[in-house]
């Protein structure tokens, strides 16, 4: 009976150990002879363990999509569109107003003839999707307001859209194995981007955040070009009418020139007709190339989606001989007169540098972000700094471990061997557990590993001290082993549950680095119940099996 239970225990231990060894040191995929060499094992080890960015180097960025801005834009666009729709239907409307503050987004349309209210509502709703807005029709005004729940949905959509766009931008940029995910609370609007191996994220950051709003607009040829913004404004009597825009001309993308004097004002201003003929959302493809081969002579060609091409073709057909401006981020990049009907392609000449042109083409292709993003957190670790951290962490752990091993052997002699087997097994299985969970090992994770080892030592000490007490009380070796484990087990369970409990809470409410710590600690503790209690006891059982009448124990 006892024999068979010992056998089962031994088999479990051997099986678990082998699985652990395979997970940590074994190859993924087919086994080769080189997998058994020292280098092969080291290679497999580094492939199996997923190191965090703080250890292998890389960049960790937390950004927030300015979702409030997004809602504000939507509200204002809807206001304009509603007014236009009602006016186009020749219905009696006055002016429109909107409120766009945190948690309060409203569009109000003033009605001059109360009897036409329903007609106005119908006309507006034909053009604008107000389905998630609550409608409130009074005698003189119709108000649409966005409920808080719907705001959350819209914000969430904006973040999802931003996430998708950022993903396509970083993929096109060629970042290897990036992780992109939501971060923080559900409505925080935060996105976490991790880029292993990237130690200078400035260009990527710029690329992600760049807006690249492209618009093709008709030049208002009834007025001439202005040299200052003020003179352009004056021609309108101070304020620009809603159907006109005043933008500076900045053909040459020569950053150094601008930077030397950030306050320098552009010297050419154009009046353009608003809204734009088409904008960047109609873009299908864009690429950068240089005609002359010169490095600062790049331009961007683009092609349009079918719907946009149709619209563009119609418009250019009607406006042959007129001037059209290519506007990028509220700056006129080039002005061209239309020689013939153009359908689906065009180009932006701006004498861009190669890098600028390529990044620009890329952002045009990926579409524009729904709202601006801001960076909230950046952590970048160069590969050498990460390697130093590993070395320091491993050195410290090894120093601690070696000391513990020596002490346990001297103090507990034979039983110390049990403790060491338990410790090594704990370490092995915790790392194996991390691999199974596909969790990354970070610096705080190493700290968790060390604490787990500390708890493993504590379990062994508790058991051994208890056994010594029982031996001192005159009990037989078999009895002392049994009672030592039984009594200590209650304490061990209590200490472990308390720590696991607080670690679980840490995991649930903590952020990145704290989580790494919590995961390794929880794993270490769970495994400890196996390695320090089950395995260690099996070793004692095995000793007693060989010598049932053992008179003394090496402890």
């Amino acid at each position, binding site marked *: 009976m006892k024999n068979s239970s010992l056998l089962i225990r031994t088999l479990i231990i051997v099986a678990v150990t082998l699985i652990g060894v395979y997970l940590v040191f074994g190859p993924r995929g087919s086994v080769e002879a080189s997998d058994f060499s020292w280098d092969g094992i080291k290679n497999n080890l580094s492939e199996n363990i997923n190191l965090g960015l703080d250890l292998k180097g890389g960049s960790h960025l937390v950004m927030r999509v300015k979702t409030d801005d997004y809602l504000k834009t939507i509200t204002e666009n809807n206001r304009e569109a509603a007014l236009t729709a009602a006016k186009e239907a020749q219905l009696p409307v006055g002016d429109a107003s909107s409120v766009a503050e945190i948690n309060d987004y409203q569009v109000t349309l003033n009605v001059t003839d109360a009897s036409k209210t329903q007609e106005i509502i119908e006309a507006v709703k034909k053009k604008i999707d107000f389905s998630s807005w609550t409608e409130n029709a009074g005698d003189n005004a119709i108000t649409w307001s966005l409920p808080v729940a719907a705001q959350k949905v819209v914000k969430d959509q904006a973040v999802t859209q931003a996430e998708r766009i950022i993903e396509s931008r970083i993929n096109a940029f060629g970042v290897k194995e990036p992780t992109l995910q939501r971060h923080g609370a559900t409505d925080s609007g935060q996105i976490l981007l991790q880029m292993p191996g990237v130690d200078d994220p400035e260009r990527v950051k710029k690329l992600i955040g760049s807006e690249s709003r492209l618009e093709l607009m008709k030049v208002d040829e009834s007025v001439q070009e202005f040299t200052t913004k003020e003179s352009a404004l004056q021609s309108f009597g101070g304020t620009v009418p809603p159907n006109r825009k005043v933008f500076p001309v900045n053909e040459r993308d020569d950053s150094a020139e601008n930077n030397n004097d950030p306050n320098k004002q552009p010297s050419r201003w154009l009046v353009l007709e608003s809204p734009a003929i088409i904008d960047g959302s109609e873009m299908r493809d864009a690429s950068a190339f240089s005609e002359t081969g010169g490095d600062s002579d790049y331009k961007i060609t683009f092609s349009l989606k079918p719907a946009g091409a149709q619209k563009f073709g119609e418009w250019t057909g009607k406006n042959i001989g007129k001037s059209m401006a290519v506007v990028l981020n509220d700056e006129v990049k080039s002005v061209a007169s239309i020689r013939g009907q153009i359908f689906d392609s065009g180009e932006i000449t701006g004498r861009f540098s190669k890098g600028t042109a390529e990044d620009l083409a890329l952002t045009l292709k990926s579409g524009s972000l729904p709202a601006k993003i801001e960076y909230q957190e950046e952590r970048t670790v160069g590969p050498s700094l990460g390697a130093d951290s590993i070395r320091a962490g491993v050195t410290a752990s090894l120093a601690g471990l070696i000391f*513990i091993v020596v002490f346990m052997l001297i103090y507990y002699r034979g039983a110390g061997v049990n403790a060491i087997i338990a410790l090594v097994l704990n370490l092995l299985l915790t790392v194996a557990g991390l691999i199974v969970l596909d969790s990354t090992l970070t610096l705080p994770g190493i*700290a968790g590993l060390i604490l787990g080892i500390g708890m493993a030592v504590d379990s062994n000490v508790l058991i051994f001290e208890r056994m010594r007490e029982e031996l001192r009380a005159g009990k037989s070796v078999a009895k002392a082993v049994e009672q030592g484990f039984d009594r200590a087990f209650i304490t061990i369970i209590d200490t472990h549950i308390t720590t696991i409990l607080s670690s679980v809470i840490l995991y649930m409410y903590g952020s990145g680095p704290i989580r790494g710590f919590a995961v390794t600690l929880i794993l270490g503790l769970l495994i400890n119940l196996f390695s320090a209690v089950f395995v260690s006891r099996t070793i004692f059982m095995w000793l007693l099996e060989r010598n049932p009448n053992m008179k003394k124990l090496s402890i």
Partner: protein
Amino acid sequence: MESFLYLTLHSPLSTLHSPKLMFEFFTNIKVDWMGYRKPLIALSVLILLAGLISAIGRQAVEGGTDAFNLGVDFQGGTVITAKFKNQKPSEDEIRAALQTVGVNESVIQASTDKTDEVLIKVPLLGNVEGTQTIINDANQAADNTNSQISGNSNNQTPAETQATGQNNQVDAGRALVKRSLDTFGKEAEGTLSLGDDPNAAYKIVGTDAVGPVAGAQLRNQAVIATLLGMIGILLFIAFRYDWTYAAGAVIAVFHDVLVTLAFFSVFQWEVSLTVLAALLTLVGFSVNDSIVIFDRIRENLTLHRNRSLYDLTNESINQTMSRTIITGGLVFLSVLALVLFGGEVLRGFSLALFVGVITGTYSTIAIASPIAIWWQDKLGAAKVKQAEVQRTEKLASASRRSVSRRPIAR
């Protein structure tokens, strides 16, 4: 107190063939720990007072430092780790260079374990007077050049670096530090390492930048997680033992956290996220220690029903003293290894644990046990003891293996 170390050459019961040596510390000690509770508690109060005076005093003094030296994790800001190739500029030189770009408040810290590296910490730039204009300039430049992204590494000028600043503070810190460091020579570009770029004088090998929102978020998260963790522990101990023990353990844990924080305030060690991890670790450690002793008290209560709780507590502490010293000592030495070899990144963590391990062990004896006893006395010792005995019997029988209740001969 009597001598603690009994290195007994203990020959086991059957002194037959080869009498073996058995190292033991602290086997037969009979210390009246509870009798020392007043001076011990006084010591704790003293340390906590020192911490309080340091925390309040520092804030009250005009132009003084804050109560805690909060890292960028919690108050926002930027830490740059720069590695220099040849001559590392002195701290004063770097500080002067930072002042020329408008950063007046900076902490320059030489790395303790690597001589060619330096840590530069700048606060959130919006909070520093005089730098606001520079940030504005940087933003304006960024706006003016809209999509200026320099992929061409040969002509990067300080002005362009300024332009790479996005419209927020997280980027401004790095950009400004880089601009000031460029006065010492240029940075190794892109993916080139310092050794590969012959013209480079330095390279930024690490950046930690936390904006104001993220900082507040991390701080709140940390406090909430810690408090919830403690509530969890409180409930669990109350469930397994008794409210009086739970209160004792949790007050002891609070004490440990506060004592550790007192050290951090007095010595102005930096409080970062890793320090938080260490505080949570020591919460676990301290509760462990309390539980080991509580467990023994509970067991002794079933064995010796007619002895006073005071005596039993002393005896339980004495009985588990060898475990306390060995575990505490081993953990302490592992932490010492961390302090010595763990490097700059783990420094805060190591220091917090270093203090925490000591107070964690101490507080079980000096804080947790006296509180549990005191409260039980208040409740009426006899009645509570009765209830306690019933409760432990229930627990013992519920435990998976039966436990012998024969008194242990001492």
